[in-house]
């Protein structure tokens, strides 16, 4: 590869380029595309759910299929849509924000993506192979053990593979941030999005292993006859719940913290003010992450853990409101006294504040254990988490896409369509989910295939379904916007928003694959802003122009993931027929073979010569 690789290429070449890329910016594109695809899938599943619930005792889908829908909707949205899109945004922005040329482990980065992709595909293959998992995204043991067919097996292996990918992504980001910040970029000068990436990665690192173990136990029980959850042989189903939520609660903060970081950057940029209370914001993020590990049992208040455990976890849960509140008020204070520009990115961020506050408010209400005896497993909980997940994570993702689109693709997303998307989504969202709080309290448990007539639940559900369709319209407009922008969108300068942080300081938009010709010298928080107000208006280099060392691309991650994908099928079906051992061992051999090739073959990367860079400048 050379610098001139930016020219137009044939489709084949481009495909090859993406299959083998280890460039974090391209991996970001892959994550966004993969995550976007699964978001549409999850959204369509949501629509099926809502259509089924449009009227009492509807039979649009069968009971079994409905359970598959909710399971796949939840699993897809969380593991295959939201998280990958977040990893995509992190890949796109974080290395640039800290002034790095690359990530610490480009190879692992790409492997992480492909594992996620093939894990997700494996999971979704279940639709065509006798039925999807139907135990809910939480897949509680005991029901998950008795569930017939291979649905749950797909869940186990799909998530195991995708989860391994995520873990790699997390470690990669951690090392990148610790080791590869540009000269002068101290920890306390990092933009909040990078901070959030760091802390989120810590959460990934400590939360995912619990899921890994839980999935292994379930897999052993289902496929190899062990007895972890088999009560007759002394097993205990509550172990699953603990392990799942020890992972599960940090997971929801994995979903929100990156966006907290992003909103901090967006509010500062579009208010033309520095972030209010930067230090407090950083420590609040850490505190949320820390507390996030100590509240998991609030999902288990009704399990019967006893009053002592319930009380401790109730208090710990409510305590999280404090650091989160600090953030909400600091964002408002950031805008206070500013000069606020309202465009699409900012609209989504502004919409986030009331929406998320409502979601957090119901979260605290859920945290009150005795009150949760009523809320638990009802539509009140469904309303709560859609308020925080959609109102926080999805709004944030939209904000991030509008904000960074110019940096990623060199074009600005159309504003009009952006606004249409926002308003339809916002209205649709509140229509769908606000009413669900009341449905829950009125006696509608969640995961209900039908609700019976004459229970006072009809109108609420109808409204909810209508709202979902408004959201669908919004999403469709957004996709049209993407296509329109790609075709004839407005070209963007590298710094369209009068940015403050380093990702706006690159020379071209999209940035060259080596990011910075010369690493910039960072003189403080919001480095680009400092240079704009007190310096030359652009970053001072911290080093003379010299050779740049870059890693080679590699197809191995792709093949390795295919190996695990095949082995996954082997695991799932080996009990049915011995021939599947072929897939199991074959797949593993392929994957391990690639691993061996990777370890045994030295790969020193290549250098872009100084002269080449100079030529590029003209």
């Amino acid at each position, binding site marked *: 590869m050379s610098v001139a690789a930016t020219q137009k290429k044939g489709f084949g070449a481009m495909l090859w380029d993406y299959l083998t890329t280890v460039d974090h910016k391209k991996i970001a594109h892959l994550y966004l595309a993969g995550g976007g695809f699964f978001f549409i899938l999850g959204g369509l599943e949501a629509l099926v759910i809502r259509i089924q619930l449009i009227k009492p005792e509807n039979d649009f889908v069968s009971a079994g299929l409905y359970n598959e829908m909710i399971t796949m909707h939840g699993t897809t949205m969380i593991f295959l849509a939201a998280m990958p899109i977040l990893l995509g945004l992190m890949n796109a922005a974080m290395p640039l924000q800290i002034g790095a040329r690359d990530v*610490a*482990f480009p190879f692992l980065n790409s492997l992480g993506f492909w594992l996620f992709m093939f894990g997700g595909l494996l999971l979704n293959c279940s639709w065509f192979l006798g039925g999807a998992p139907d135990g809910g995204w939480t897949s509680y043991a005991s029901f998950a053990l008795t569930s017939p067919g291979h649905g749950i097996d797909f869940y186990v292996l799909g998530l195991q593979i995708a989860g391994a990918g995520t*873990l790699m992504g997390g*470690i*990669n980001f*951690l*090392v990148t941030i*610790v*080791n*590869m910040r540009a000269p002068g970029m101290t920890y306390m000068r990092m933009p909040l999005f990078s901070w959030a990436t760091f802390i989120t990665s810590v959460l990934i*690192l*400590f*939360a*995912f*292993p*619990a899921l*890994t*173990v*839980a999935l*292994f*136990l379930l897999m*052993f*029980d289902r496929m*190899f*006859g*062990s*007895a*972890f959850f*088999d009560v*007759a*042989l*002394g*097993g*205990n189903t509550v*172990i699953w719940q*603990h*392990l799942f939520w*020890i992972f599960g609660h940090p997971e929801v903060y994995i979903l929100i913290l990156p966006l907290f970081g992003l909103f901090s950057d967006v509010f500062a940029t579009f208010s033309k003010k520095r972030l209010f209370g930067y230090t407090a914001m950083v420590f609040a993020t850490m505190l949320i992450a820390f507390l996030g590990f100590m509240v998991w049992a609030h999902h288990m208040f009704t399990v019967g853990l006893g009053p002592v455990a319930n009380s401790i976890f109730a208090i710990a849960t409510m305590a999280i409101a404090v650091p989160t509140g600090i953030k909400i008020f600091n964002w408002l204070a950031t805008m206070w006294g500013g000069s606020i520009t309202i465009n699409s990115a900012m609209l989504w961020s502004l919409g986030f504040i009331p929406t998320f506050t409502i979601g957090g408010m119901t979260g605290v209400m859920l945290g009150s254990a005795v009150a949760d005896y009523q809320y638990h497993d009802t539509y009140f909980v469904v309303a709560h988490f859609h308020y925080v997940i959609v109102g926080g994570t999805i709004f944030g993702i939209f904000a991030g896409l509008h904000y960074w689109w110019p940096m990623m693709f060199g074009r600005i997303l159309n504003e009009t369509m952006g606004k249409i998307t926002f308003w339809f989504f916002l209205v649709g969202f509140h229509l769908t989910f606000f009413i669900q709080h009341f449905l829950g309290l009125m006696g509608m448990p969640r995961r209900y295939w039908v609700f019976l007539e004459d229970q006072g639940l009809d109108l609420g559900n109808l409204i909810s379904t209508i709202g979902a369709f408004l959201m669908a319209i919004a999403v469709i407009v957004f996709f049209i916007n993407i296509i329109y922008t790609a075709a004839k969108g407005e070209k963007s300068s590298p710094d369209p928003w009068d940015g403050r942080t380093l990702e706006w300081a690159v020379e071209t938009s999209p940035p060259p694959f080596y990011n910075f010709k010369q690493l910039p010298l960072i003189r403080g928080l919001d480095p680009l802003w400092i240079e704009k107000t007190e310096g030359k208006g652009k970053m001072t280099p911290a080093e003379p122009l010299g050779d740049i*060392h870059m890693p080679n691309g590699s197809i191995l991650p792709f093949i390795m993931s295919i190996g695990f994908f095949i082995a996954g099928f082997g695991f799932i079906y080996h009990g049915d027929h011995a021939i599947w051992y072929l897939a199991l061992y074959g797949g593993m051999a392929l994957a391990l073979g690639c691993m*061996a090739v990777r*370890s*045994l073959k*030295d790969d*020193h990367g*290549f*250098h872009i010569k100084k002269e080449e860079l100079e030529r590029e400048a003209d």
Partner: protein
Amino acid sequence: MSQDHSLNPETMPNEPEKATLEGKNKFLGLWFFLGGETVLFASLFGTYLALRNSAADGPTSEELFGLGLVFLMTILLLTSSLTSVYAMYHMKNNNFKKMQVWLGITALLGIAFLTCEIYEFTHYITEYGFTFRSSAFGSAFYTLVGFHGGHVTFGLFWLIGLMIRNAKRGLNLYNAPKFNTFSLYWHFIDVVWVFIFTVVYLMGKVG
């Protein structure tokens, strides 16, 4: 190779394993990975603790465990930890041959450990009919100890791969970090074993 990473006495830095950015990254990455592994093993230990008395009708830990073999295994693994320290000592002194020798000893000790473990498992299965499927306790026992054994096996492959791969190349800045990360990983396996012999075997014997 565009850049010569290989070492000669003049260019030998004090800490060859951390002299390059790649080396530093590997070093840190491995440590973080171990942080995650801590939680992984904690989950397995937790599961084991929760189920260790759920023997159903199968044999219990008191009936099963013999301390002699476990003690031997412990000494083997602890010693292998020390020998890998020796290997790293020689790496820092840029003495490749001695490093290889000590790594070889480490590998042998690891293999001996694994052999004992395999013997132990077959013993339980044939003598007591105590298997993975006997009871929740059986599942938890084999899973926890087996995961550790799996880590040892993986470590052995890694180590032997490293030794063969680099036998002819000697030490250089490209592979020094690899030896170092391996040794960290190996110590960690030892750490896990310390808890296994304490929590599983000794506590199992106490009841």
